């Protein structure tokens, strides 16, 4: 069988086991060559476009950290103005910081104006490009360099900002969550999204072995555990309804957390550690109930 050429070429400089590089490759392969991509500043831009090389086989542009959505809006407006809408679909992409923090305003504007753009957030749950600092997507009690554990700290005290709900609140044409652990599900969602006109949002969980403190070979396994514990539900929103695309037989969150060094401090027998674990379990339980995840 002939090997299909990837639209994100190999030879880029991502770390071994990088979930983001897998996710980005799956997305662009599913989207196909008739796509124009806009990209936030971050790991993806750095490891795929170190001058004079580029891993991108599709037209691709990076401008700044916080304007991938607004650049995509401009690309789409230009395609309409120049009668070139048949030429390409537009994908805007960024990491969790570029999407949920510094780029949230321009993303909201892109949604609200109804641009025919699919926005992809590659969520590795911290600012990994700058060295594992917390973002609004960093999970509760995770250890990062700006939410470190210490004598009086158990890590990041806040809860993940719910970007899926934020997208749905904008009445987007389509919204979904996915992860690299379930590649066919991810590709199907990309293709479905691109078949719908209007603003679309896809939130993809992409483990970062370096930042999550997991072995390079564990990327797929750990991303599947995020789903099977209920901490990262695979969801889809279309026609005004939210549905779970993957039912689970819930595993305790401990099964997911114990795989990762960023939660190592929660593994002791102290009452405090146990209380923090219970808090995280409660988040999973709430997801399971809200989205009726149980098989």
């Amino acid at each position: 069988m002939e090997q299909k050429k990837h639209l994100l070429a190999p030879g880029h400089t991502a770390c071994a086991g990088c979930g983001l590089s897998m996710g980005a490759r799956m997305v662009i392969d599913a989207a196909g060559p008739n796509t124009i991509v806009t990209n936030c500043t971050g790991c993806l831009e750095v490891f795929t476009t170190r001058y004079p090389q580029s891993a991108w086989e599709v037209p691709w542009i990076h401008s700044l950290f916080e304007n991938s959505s607004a650049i995509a809006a401009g690309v789409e407006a230009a395609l309409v103005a120049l009668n070139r809408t048949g030429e390409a679909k537009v994908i805007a992409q960024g990491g969790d910081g570029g999407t949920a923090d510094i780029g949230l305003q321009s993303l909201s504007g892109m949604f609200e104006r109804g641009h025919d753009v699919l926005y992809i957030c590659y969520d590795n749950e911290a600012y990994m490009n700058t060295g594992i600092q917390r973002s609004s997507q960093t999970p509760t009690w995770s250890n990062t360099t700006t939410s470190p554990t210490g004598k009086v700290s158990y890590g990041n005290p806040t809860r993940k900002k719910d970007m899926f709900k934020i997208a749905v609140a904008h009445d987007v044409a389509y919204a979904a969550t996915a992860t690299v652990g379930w590649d066919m599900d991810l590709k199907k969602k990309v293709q479905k999204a691109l078949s719908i006109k209007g603003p679309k949002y896809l939130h993809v969980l992409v483990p970062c072995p370096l930042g999550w403190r997991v072995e390079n070979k564990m990327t797929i396994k750990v991303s599947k555990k995020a789903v099977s514990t209920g901490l990262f539900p695979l969801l889809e929103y279309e026609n005004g309804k939210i549905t779970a695309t993957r039912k689970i037989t819930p595993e305790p969150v401990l099964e997911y957390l114990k795989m990762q060094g960023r939660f190592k401090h929660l593994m002791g027998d102290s009452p405090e550690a146990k209380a923090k674990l219970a808090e995280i379990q409660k988040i999973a339980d709430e997801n399971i109930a809200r989205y009726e995840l149980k098989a």
Partner: protein
Amino acid sequence: MKKYIEGSMAVADAVNLCRPDVISAYPITPQTHIVEDLSQLHADGKFKGQFVNVESEFSAASVCLGAVATGARSYTATTAQGLLLMAEVLFNIAGMRLPLVLTCANRAISAPINIWTDHSDAMALRDCGFIQLFAENNQEAADLHYMAYKISEDNSVRLPVMVNMDGFLLTHAFEPIDIPTQEEVDAFLPPYKPEYYLTTKHPITMGSMVGEDGYMEVRHYLEEAMKNAFPVIEKVTNEFKQKFGRYYGTFVDSYKMEDAETVIVAMGSVLGTIKDAVDLMRKNGVKVGALKVRTFRPFPEKHIREALNNVTNVAITDRASSVGLGGILASELKGALYGYTSVPNVTSYIVGLGGRDITVKTITDIAGQAGAKFDSSKFVELDKEFMKKGDEYLKTI
């Protein structure tokens, strides 16, 4: 055909005649009338491109960046706080060598908040890589846009252009303006046909990461592009003069400077007042003239030097101040004169900040101080009562 219209309407008409594909803007006083007029042209089917109403100036500039990168002629307008919010994107547009025309309705920067005429906004962005042109009146403001696109899109330049017009004093002033026909503009400004842009027919990567092995070289080419802009600005200005019969100077423009001993240097609408003051002083036998700096970036060192060659005294008025340095035009102009044996006495004056009137008397007073010691942060005509109260209060804390 001459129409008696507001400066903003003249600019909107001019921009529309340039056939932009994508316009994106965010409202801010005193730029609002320009985008309102363009919105109306869109609503009436006269502007046929895409009008993208965004949630901030930051996104307005970003939408334009994306549109130009996709091969569309694009336009935006802003002022003051809006220009500062765009700052990161404007550096990026220039660095990526994307042609764009932006109108800046020059206004003061907060704090204290103030919406009136001032050049602090454009001056703060003087290093961003945009060509910066300053209009003296509304006919020039409108005409600069036809020229700006042609300069910006020239292959040897490929730099964005900021057309500066004084907020309120020009944007809100009514004057009879000659608006050319579409055929005349089309004959002057050909469609935008970029060499490279985002297309699936020939995929390219734009905005890639360049390390220490190439960053300096790329920035060097940006500097070269600014140098290349000199002959292009000259060519385009002359062609405009030929086709439309209007000329406002190229890089600088001199007024009654033939035998002038003292010359007032300025940018923007204040030149009208300065010319009146020059006329008045000449009636009284004072040998005085005026020099308008029309192109601020690229900075026309050579042209300024040549213009001031036989002058004894030069008084520079700045409608902005680099806090900690003082007059910016003054500082750069002094630099242009450095190393030459026969240089004039140079004095520097900060005038007209935040919409403060600059009167004929302001100018004649400045001319009267010709030959005074250089003081780059001399604020002219400070209110004595205000200062007395302020000084008293400062003593109490």
